[in-house]
C-alpha cells in the first residue's frame, strides 16, 4: 500500500470516506421522497458556484456550497408552491446552472481540464483547507441525517400525515434540499458534480435488493457508498482514471451483482420448493 505514502492520496482517501458516507445518507431520503434526480440538478447549479469562485478568487468549495444551497432552496420552493410549470422551471434552473458554469469558467480563463476536474472529480486536487471544509460539512450532514431520521423519514414517507403530526414539513423539506446541496459540494472533489447524484442513488438501489426495512437500507447504502468511494479512489490511482467514473462504475457493478444474486437466490428457493412439492406427492 505504497499509495498511502503520498499525502495527496491520504487526503483523497479521507475525502472519499466522507463522500461515500454522506451521499447515500441523504440520498436514501431523496429516493424515499421520489426525488432521486434532485442531486443531479443541484450538481448542475453548483457548477456555477465553482465558476464564480474561480472568477473571483474565493475558494470554489465555498462559493459552490453557497450557490448550490441557494439553488436547492429555489427548487424546493418551486416544488412546494409551484403548480404545473414547476417541471419546466426546474429544467431551466439545471441548464442555466451548467451553461452559466461553463461560460464563467471560460471567462475566468480556465482550461477545459479545470472544468473536467470539477465535473468528474480529481484526486490530486484536494488541498488541506478543502479537506477541513469537506470533513466539517460531511460531519454536519451525517449528524443531521442520522439524528433527525425519524422526522425526515416521516416527511419523506407521507408529507400530509407528518404535517398533521405537528412536524414542520416545509422546514424539513428545505433542510433535505440544503443537506443535498452541501453533500454535493462535499463529494465534488471525489466524484465530481456530474456523477455525484449516482452515488446518492445507486447504493440505495443496491441496498434495497438486500434489505427489508428503511433503517437497514439506510445503513447498508452508507456502507456500500463508503466501499465504492474508497475502492474507486484507490483504483483510479492504480489505473490512472478519473475517480468519479471509476467510483460510479464500481457502485453500478455492486448493483448488478446484488440484482443477479437476488434473482439466483429466488430461483434456487423456487427449485427447492418445487422438489419438496414433488416429494410430498
Amino acid at each position: 500500500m505504497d499509495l498511502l505514502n503520498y499525502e495527496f492520496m491520504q487526503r483523497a482517501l479521507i475525502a472519499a470516506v466522507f463522500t461515500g458516507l454522506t451521499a447515500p445518507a441523504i440520498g436514501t431520503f431523496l429516493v424515499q421522497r421520489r426525488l432521486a434526480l434532485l442531486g443531479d440538478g443541484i450538481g448542475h447549479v453548483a457548477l456555477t458556484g465553482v465558476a464564480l469562485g474561480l472568477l473571483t478568487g474565493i475558494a470554489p468549495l465555498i462559493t459552490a456550497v453557497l450557490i448550490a444551497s441557494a439553488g436547492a432552496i429555489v427548487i424546493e420552493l418551486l416544488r412546494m408552491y409551484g403548480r404545473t410549470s414547476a417541471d419546466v422551471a426546474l429544467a431551466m434552473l439545471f441548464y442555466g446552472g451548467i451553461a452559466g458554469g461553463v461560460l464563467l469558467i471560460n471567462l475566468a480563463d480556465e482550461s477545459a481540464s479545470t472544468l473536467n476536474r470539477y465535473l468528474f472529480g480529481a484526486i490530486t486536487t484536494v488541498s488541506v483547507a478543502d479537506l477541513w471544509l469537506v470533513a466539517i460539512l460531511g460531519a454536519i450532514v451525517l449528524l443531521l441525517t442520522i439524528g433527525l431520521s425519524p422526522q425526515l423519514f416521516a416527511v419523506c414517507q407521507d408529507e400530509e400525515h407528518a404535517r398533521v403530526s405537528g412536524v414542520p414539513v416545509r422546514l424539513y423539506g428545505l433542510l433535505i434540499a440544503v443537506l443535498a446541496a452541501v453533500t454535493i459540494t462535499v463529494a465534488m472533489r471525489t466524484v465530481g458534480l456530474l456523477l455525484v447524484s449516482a452515488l446518492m442513488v445507486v447504493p440505495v438501489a443496491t441496498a434495497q435488493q438486500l434489505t427489508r426495512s428503511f433503517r437497514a437500507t439506510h445503513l447498508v447504502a452508507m456502507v456500500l457508498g463508503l466501499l465504492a468511494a474508497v475502492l474507486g479512489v484507490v483504483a483510479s490511482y492504480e489505473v490512472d482514471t478519473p475517480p468519479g467514473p471509476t467510483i460510479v462504475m464500481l457502485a453500478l457493478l455492486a448493483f448488478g451483482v446484488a440484482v443477479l444474486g437476488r434473482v439466483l437466490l429466488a430461483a434456487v428457493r423456487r427449485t427447492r420448493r418445487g422438489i419438496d412439492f414433488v416429494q410430498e406427492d
Partner: protein
Amino acid sequence: MTSPIAVRGIDVDLAGRPVLRQVDLDVAPGEFVALLGANGSGKSTLVRATVGLVPTAAGSIQLFGTPLARFRDWRRVGYMPQRSSAVAGVPATVREVVTSGRLARRPVVGFRTRADRVAVDEAIERIGLAHRHDSPMTELSGGQQQRVLIARALASQPDLIVMDEPTAGVDHENTEILAAVLGGLASEGTSVLLVAHELGPMRPLIDRAVVMRAGRVEHDGPVADLRTDDHEAHAHLHSSQPPQHDSLSGEGPWR
C-alpha cells in the same frame, strides 16, 4: 369537555374555484360522525381543511377549543389521509411506518422510549398484524396497508381520529376488521370523524351523519333519518362508479 372539532362557516377555494361554502361541522367528545357525499361534494376538502392541510378563505376552525392556527397538541389527533402513499421509494416495515405515528409525542431529538415501543406494538396488535410487524409495506395487500395506516394514526394514542375514506378500494374482510377496530375505539370514548363513500359494516357504529352536496351541508342528523336509498344512491349517481346497491341494505340491529 371541549369539542374535538368545531368548524363554523368556512369557505374554501381551490385553484380559484369555490369548493366549500359556509360549512359547519361539529364532533362532540366520544361522538362517531360519518361525513358522506358524492365524489366532488367537498367532503374530503372539509376534513383536510379541518386538520390544516387546506387553507380556508373564511370562517373559523377550532380543535379541542383552540383555534387551528394556534393548535399545537397534535398528539391528540390521529389522521389517516386518503389513498396515502403507503409505499414510498424506499421499503419500510410495518413497525417503521407505525412508529412515525409517535412523532407528535416525541421530542425533536432523542431515542425511542419504552412507552413509544409499547404504544406502537399495541397499535399493530389492534389492527391484527402483529405477526407481520417486520414485513415491508410492499408485501402487504391494499387492505392490510390501510390497516397499517390506521395503526399509525392510533400510535399517538389520540382523543380524535380523522379518517379520509379508509375503506376505499378495501375488500370486505379488511373492511370488517376496520369496523371492529373503530368499534373498539368508539367504546373507549375516542371521537371519530370518518369520511366514507358508503358505510357498509361501519353503519351500526355511527352516531350522526353529515351529508355534503356541492360544497354545502345537505343533511346533519342521525343516520336513521337518512333515507338510505335516497342519499347514498344519489351519491352514486353522481360518481364515476356504478351504483352498488348491495352495500346499501345494511340494516343494523340498531335501526
